[in-house]
């Protein structure tokens, strides 16, 4: 292993440092914050690549590619809580992906957030997020992983609500936080249970870790009740956490709303990295999920994996269906993300770690590309997000169009050239071979058809036809995004004149991402499954013969994609809509079902009348009880207020009686004293004390390390 690889533990600390530093920079220091964020991310990327190369060097030998550093966190009584970091192929590949995509998105943000007064804060939050995500990636302790998991949650909350004066953004941030918290409870319970069973939350610890044979044998043989093993219970609870974070059914509702955040945030957090953390978690603890058999393809028969497969497949279809009925460019992509995350879970459950992770990596690139492309479109159209008010943009935004088309074809899975085809094909292939049922395969195919369809629809609406956005655009933009600087291009009534291509800081990352969206497919074709071999720790063998085994599924998937894209083009591309108000072509055909799709199949409404209403009822009840009990206290408070009023009158009379001069003097003096007090003296005292504590603590801790 080369020497720089051993510094991989520094990777998350770099953006953390940048976040801390830009937090104390003045709000106006936007450039400094951006430079810090991009610099730290660039350095993190370099370190990640060197770590990745390090794992390549240790490739092939038994556990040779895994390096673990554990350390004591604190002692409590006789127990020790330990944390650790871990570098193995799974972590390395995530490190490279997160830091590279993150770096590109950071650069893109420089252009996108150019007009925002709080840009410095934005980069601070982005860095914080990157630190948490990278930390999660290399955690060797589930506690550390959980801490980073929550750190991402906080950063996500802060960034969704970045434009917090928009009520929708504030509500979306809260919703994301609360809904993912439901999953987090499951995850935390799972962690506690695992700790109780295995006695350690370190993943690898020289034979004592909870993913190593000893502990695995223990948890897979311990029974809870008659049939459920502890491993299954723990696995299900951990999966609940993953469901929350990765927006799977039934906790997917927060993810589309999270699109209220700035578009780079949607690209980084809600498409490429954070939402994939649930997939990563399942991949990380896969031996536990699989019931202890280790990472072997085709072992998808454990109860937990069956659950995961069904949830993933249902989400893939369900979200793809909703995406068909959406008109907001980002919401379509959001539902597409939910759907693709479903594919990843399906891949994990039916085909093992490599299948799910391969789609995670390719998806990260092309979905980040699509989101950034949509950001470029939104930026160019003066904050317009409704695809009905776009059209014909390919003429004014050629680079964005080209990049977006690449992303769209990768997502749709256009055969042979694009990475999305290979990774999705792997999933469909393993779903086909899955023993318990063929239905997940059917659902996957249906989802692939829908994906091709809605992406074609979106591209046709946005980039083809005539521009439809001039009327009422200014008012809309001003009302919707009043906080951002008003459009700096004079908006003219002439069609599309205000639309412009984005600057190179935005198109540059698009092009780079586009290149990778194409090239990445090479590492995971059935003929040369390098990715799987790399994760599995063995050598990849080139064998064209395997292509023929995979051919039937590949042909099915190609036909389905062609059908989806063809139907989409027929309905939306050949006869483009003429005005924003004209109904969708599917409306007459599907009728009520289309309305239901547009309303996201009423899931939010369902939660409103069940969970939220129940909660409200409960809080009303609590409030009522409170009033009842507190009633007496309220009377008492009233009495005390009366007494205080009496005292004040008495004091008043005293001051008045003491004479005008004395009164004035006292009041003036009191004012000076109070103003001193308010001016921070008491605060200064407390700060002095706090400083004393910090100094003493630092001194004695320093002494400990020296002595």
């Amino acid at each position: 292993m080369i020497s720089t690889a051993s510094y991989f533990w520094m990777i998350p600390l770099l953006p953390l440092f940048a976040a801390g530093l830009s937090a104390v920079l003045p709000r106006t220091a936007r450039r400094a914050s951006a430079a810090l964020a991009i610099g730290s991310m660039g350095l993190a990327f370099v370190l990640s690549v060197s770590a990745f190369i390090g794992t390549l060097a240790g490739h092939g030998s038994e556990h040779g590619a895994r390096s673990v550093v554990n350390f004591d966190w604190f002692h409590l009584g006789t127990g020790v809580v330990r944390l650790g970091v871990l570098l193995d192929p799974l972590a390395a590949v995530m490190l490279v992906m997160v830091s590279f995509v993150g770096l590109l998105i950071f650069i893109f943000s420089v252009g996108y957030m150019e007009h925002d007064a709080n840009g410095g804060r934005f980069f601070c939050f982005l860095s914080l997020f990157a630190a948490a995500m990278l930390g999660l990636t290399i955690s060797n302790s589930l506690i550390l992983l959980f801490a980073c998991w929550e750190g991402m949650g906080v950063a996500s909350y802060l960034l969704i609500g970045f434009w917090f004066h928009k009520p929708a953004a504030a509500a979306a941030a809260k919703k994301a936080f609360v809904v993912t918290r439901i999953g987090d409870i499951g995850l935390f319970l799972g962690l506690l249970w695992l700790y109780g069973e295995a006695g350690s939350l370190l993943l690898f610890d020289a034979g004592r870790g909870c993913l190593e044979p000893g502990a695995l044998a223990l948890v897979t043989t311990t029974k809870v009740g008659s049939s459920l093993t502890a491993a299954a219970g723990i696995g299900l609870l951990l999966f609940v956490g993953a469901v929350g974070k990765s927006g799977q059914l039934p906790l997917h509702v927060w993810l589309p709303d999270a699109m209220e955040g700035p578009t780079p945030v949607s690209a980084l957090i809600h498409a490429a990295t954070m939402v994939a953390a649930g997939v990563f978690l399942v991949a990380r603890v896969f031996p536990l999920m699989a019931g202890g058999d280790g990472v072997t393809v085709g072992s998808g028969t454990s109860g937990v994996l069956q659950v995961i497969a069904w949830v993933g497949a249902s989400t893939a279809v369900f979200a793809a269906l909703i995406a068909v009925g959406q008109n907001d460019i980002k919401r379509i992509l959001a539902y597409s993300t939910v759907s693709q995350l479903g594919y990843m879970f399906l891949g994990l459950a039916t085909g093992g770690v490599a299948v799910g992770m391969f789609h995670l990596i390719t998806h990260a690139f092309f979905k980040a590309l699509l989101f950034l492309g949509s950001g470029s479109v939104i930026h160019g159209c003066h904050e317009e997000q409704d695809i009905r008010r776009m059209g014909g943009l390919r003429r004014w935004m050629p680079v964005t169009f080209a990049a977006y088309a690449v992303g769209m074809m990768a997502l749709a899975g256009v055969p042979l050239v694009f990475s999305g085809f290979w990774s999705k094909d792997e999933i469909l292939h393993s779903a086909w071979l899955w023993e318990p049922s063929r239905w997940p395969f059917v659902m996957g195919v249906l989802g692939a058809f829908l994906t091709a369809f809605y992406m074609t629809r979106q591209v046709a609406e946005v980039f083809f036809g005539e521009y439809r956005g001039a009327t009422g655009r200014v008012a809309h933009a001003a009302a919707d995004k009043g906080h951002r600087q008003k459009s700096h291009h004079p908006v003219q009534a002439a069609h599309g004149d205000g639309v412009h291509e984005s600057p190179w800081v935005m198109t540059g990352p698009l092009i780079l991402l586009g290149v990778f969206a194409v090239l990445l497919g090479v590492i995971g074709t059935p003929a040369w499954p390098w990715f799987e071999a790399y994760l599995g720790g063995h050598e990849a063998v080139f064998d064209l013969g395997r292509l023929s085994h995979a051919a039937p599924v590949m042909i099915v998937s190609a036909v389905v994609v062609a059908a989806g894209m063809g139907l989409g083009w027929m309905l939306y591309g050949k006869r483009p809509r003429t005005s924003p108000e004209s109904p969708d072509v599917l409306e007459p055909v599907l009728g009520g079902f289309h309305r239901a799709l547009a309303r996201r199949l009423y899931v939010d409404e369902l939660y409103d009348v069940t969970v939220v209403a129940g909660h409200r009822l409960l809080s009303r009840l609590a409030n009522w009880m409170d009033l009842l009990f507190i009633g007496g206290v309220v009377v008492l408070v009233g009495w005390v207020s009366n007494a205080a009023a009496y005292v004040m009158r008495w004091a008043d009379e005293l001051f008045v009686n003491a004479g005008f001069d004395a009164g004035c003097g006292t009041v003036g003096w009191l004012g000076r004293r109070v103003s001193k007090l308010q001016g921070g003296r008491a605060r200064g005292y407390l700060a002095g004390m706090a400083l004393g504590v910090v100094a003493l603590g630092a001194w004695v801790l320093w002494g400990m390390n020296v002595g």
Partner: protein
Amino acid sequence: MVVNYAQLAWLASAEVLLVITALAVLAVDLKLRSSATPERRRSVALGLGATGCALGIVWLLVAAPDGSAPGGMLVSDALTRLVKVILLALTVGTLGLSGRSTFTPHVGEYVAVILLGGVGMMLIAGTENVLMMFLALELASLSLYILAGFAKRDPRSMEAALKYFLFGGMAAAFLLFGLSFVYGVSGSIEFRGMGAGLAGQKMIPLLLVGLVMVLVGLGFKVAAVPFHFWAPDAYEGAPTPVAAFIAAGSKVAAFFLVAKLSLLAFAQVGGSAAWGAFVPGWTPLVAVVAAASMLVGNFAALAQRNVKRLLAYSAVAHAGYALVGVVGAGSGSVATVTFYAATYAVTALGAFGVVGVVEAVAGGSDFSHFAGLSRRSPGLALAFGILVLSLAGIPPLVGFFAKFYVFLGALTPVGGQGPMALLWLVGLGIATTCVSFYYYLRLLKVVFVEDPPADSRTISPGVGEWAVVVVTTVLVVLVGCAPALFLGPLQAALASVGLGR
């Protein structure tokens, strides 16, 4: 844990007596409120309170309840009884200084809160359990916050109370947090159990941070740097008898607690404060705080033009000297620290008594109000001179012997530590003492040399004030000349509980 309530009541009988007295004072004052004159109400309340305290002293000396409640919640032995007697005596002194307290018409409540504060301090002295210790500290502190703001018509008093309260609240939070850490490491909430639990414990960051936080809470109570910020404002703003109570009673209780906690609980994680050979732990932390207190207290006092503020900084400096006793002397530290704190408390009580008298007549406590005191009230000036010289540490007054005893303790070889290990701290103490001469003597110059203001009246203290000033002055001279008068009983008590040298 079986709780025997009869035993608890027996162990806490002196405290119970004081609480009953406080309730009686409230009841009697309520009865008298409409019928009696303010003066009569005041003398009745103060007399009743003082009687209760006196009964408590007699009870402790005669009945001598002995034993300890489960978990070290309440400990009553010769040592705690001695400290409680001192605390009760200081409470009586505080009541004695309140004879002319015209700052409040609610004299019954005032006396009752003083008594409750006294109960809190006695409980601080009489427990070896950190939970009880925290509760007792809170009882004492809350009483003192209320007392500091008792002059409701005086905005300075309100401000003092608010600052004291804000600071105290934060310090209490630190203390509780720190104790929870130490509990986490040691697994016990009893002083001795903590000591046993910490024996052989590796010095880990959690424990060190816990110790620092505990030091914040205790450093606040003893007004040690950098947790002293509240002191000058509180001393200046609070009614003078209350300031005396804060300076005297609460200091004795807190220092006794610090010494006991250091010896029983933290001895095993003491580390070393020896120059050039620091070992992280409790004593180097205390040593740093002590050194900072001596420096800041003495130098800040140089700049003061108000006697109460000057006494506040002087108190900060004295806290530093007393903490030197905690750092050094090993098992002898309880003796040196208790001796230092008790004698300082007596001296400060007397000095505040004089300040209170001057303030009541001259209308303030600036240096100018003290000008020519020797000509306006020779007896008072003489007593003040003796008390201030004792604070400065001039032989043969008790302040000298107390410092000497502390420094001697610090230079005594303890457990593998050479006699010169703490020379840096002692040297600093002696050097800052020299600094302190300057401001103490300048104060005396104002009193004895400067001319009184032209329109000044003669100053004549009331009976209670005279009694307090005279008794404290006599004690300062007497114990200074014959330290064994106090040191004898103290060491006997220490020996009887196994904490002697």
